[in-house]
């Protein structure tokens, strides 16, 4: 509620007002804010480098790209709009099954069509669940998200005719992407496909978070009580973010289905919801690159630690996570923050 931290009661350096204050506002920094910066390019060279350096691990790299989309979707919901959820796998699963059923039951194996279909179904699921989820706040809301996740899991478990239940959904065949690139045995097409979808979704998300809508999400995350006093209907904004996040999650789920040609009931599992939350917190919620970095670090850690210590790797991952949340409150991206701000200040204050 109160945006004031105790220490800000003492006069800050600006209270001294020793130097004459500039009378006009320089709008240039804000106009520049949405422009791409060079470290971003470096991040996007990683998947290209991985293609050449790790040709044996394309299947794992594809998983990373899909998880990154999923993390991105949670970032929009939690990191930006501030909706805490432990049921986000519901939409991942809905998308995974939508794409799977379209191919397996209706015989429509076009990947892009499948993505669109899954996105639409997941968006609809978001729209349907939004009023229930947004009704409560805090713990109530969290419980509702868990409840929705559990219900969907059980529904998929029981509807064996449709979903295959615990045996999973099989018989999914994909036609070549745009009729040109078929999925190969080495996972090359799947990898490029997943990375391109990730890039496109990332660029869209980037545009959205820098927009006035994105600004309003950040603001209502910081202080929801203030927004109605600015004439904003908080519920409508939250619902929009929720549906957007659901759509992204659905696309991620569909990608998993299409690249593995199989749907396991795990796509709806509680563990998946919890894991993606860990990943986002690890990378830094509320910044898009937090979702990417978190995924890369988590999956790499997982892979490396499981290699070193196949029995107790989860314990080591737990240790690393505790260390990061204790010492870098806002995740990996949060740890970079102070340096970034220092650089930005040097630029604006010569």
């Amino acid at each position, binding site marked *: 509620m109160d945006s*004031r931290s105790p220490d800000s009661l003492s006069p800050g350096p600006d209270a001294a007002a020793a130097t004459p204050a500039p009378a006009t*506002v320089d709008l240039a920094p804000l106009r520049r*804010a*949405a422009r791409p910066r060079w470290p971003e390019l470096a991040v996007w060279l990683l998947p290209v480098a991985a293609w050449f350096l790790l040709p044996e691990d394309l299947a794992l790299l594809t998983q990373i790209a899909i998880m990154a989309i999923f993390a991105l979707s949670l970032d929009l919901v939690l990191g930006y709009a501030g909706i805490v959820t432990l049921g986000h796998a519901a939409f991942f699963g809905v998308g995974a099954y939508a794409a799977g059923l379209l191919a397996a039951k209706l015989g429509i194996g076009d990947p892009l069509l499948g993505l669109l279909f899954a996105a639409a179904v997941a968006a609809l699921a978001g729209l349907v669940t939004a009023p229930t989820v947004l009704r409560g706040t805090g713990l109530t809301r969290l419980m509702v998200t868990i409840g929705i996740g559990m219900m969907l899991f059980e529904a998929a478990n029981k509807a064996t005719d449709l979903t295959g239940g615990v045996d999973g959904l099989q018989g999914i065949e994909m036609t070549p992407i745009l009729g040109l690139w078929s999925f190969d045995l080495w996972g090359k097409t799947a990898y490029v496909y997943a990375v391109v979808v990730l890039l496109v979704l990332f660029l869209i998300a980037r*545009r959205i978070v820098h927009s006035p809508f994105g600004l*309003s999400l950040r603001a209502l995350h910081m202080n929801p009580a203030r927004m109605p006093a*600015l004439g904003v209907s908080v519920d409508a904004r939250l619902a929009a973010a929720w549906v957007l996040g659901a759509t992204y999650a659905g696309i991620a789920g569909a990608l998993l289905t299409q690249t593995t040609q199989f749907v396991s009931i795990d796509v709806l599992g509680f563990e998946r919801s919890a894991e993606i939350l860990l990943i986002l917190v690890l990378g830094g919620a509320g910044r898009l690159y937090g979702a990417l970095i978190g995924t890369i670090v988590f999956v790499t850690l997982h892979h490396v630690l499981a290699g070193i210590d196949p029995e107790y790797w989860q314990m080591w991952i737990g240790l690393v996570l505790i260390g990061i949340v204790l010492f870098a409150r806002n995740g990996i991206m949060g740890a970079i923050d102070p340096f970034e701000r220092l650089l930005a200040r040097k630029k604006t204050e010569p």
Partner: protein
Amino acid sequence: MTAPALHTRNLVKTFGGFTATDDVSLTLAPGARHALIGPNGAGKTTLVNLLTGVLAPTAGAVFLAGEDVTGLGQHRRVRRGLARTFQINRLFADLTVLESVALAVGERRGVGWRVWSPVGAQGEVLDEAARLIETLRLADVAHRRTRDLAYGRQRLIEIALALAVRPRVLLLDEPAAGVPTRESRALFETLAELPRDMTILLIEHDMDLVFRFAERISVLVSGAVLLEDTPDVVATHPLVREVYLGEATHHA
């Protein structure tokens, strides 16, 4: 005759058996400089919440420019020109001053649903936000985060956000609360410079500010309006001295 900018008719709010607002009929003429005073627990905050739509009244009605807005929620009343500041700052800690004000201006101008063009491309919104920041003498800190500013300057952002709504009626809920004396001058100057066609209701503890600013004063005691008159009359009224000013001098 033009309708009052804001008026209430027999407003009542009870919480269980407790009457927080007791039959309040308040009228603010267009352009009024009206103050609402009263001891702690008089029901000032409840009344503000009823006026702004945070709370629904148990009985009675609220009118904005003659239109019944009793059934409207907070954000709808804001869109009809009723803005407020908060007794305790309710700001966006990690947004810069410019981002905060641009947000508020943008929402009023209806660009809040734009998803495809960056905030930095909203030329008119940014220009208006910049003018407002300059008017409030916050230009030097426009790119600083709210949380990094002194409380007195945060108070000015609070007012900037309310002004960004371009209100016809502005409720100032203890604008000087928590502001150190050496920082309060800028705040008082800002309030004095507000346009005369804006109707202002000032809820305030600081008697200096009330008697300098207000042209009419309502005294609220136990949820009811004890009296309403000009500052001169209120200042010398025996009842007021007893319930309010007397108490204030004891504390001072």
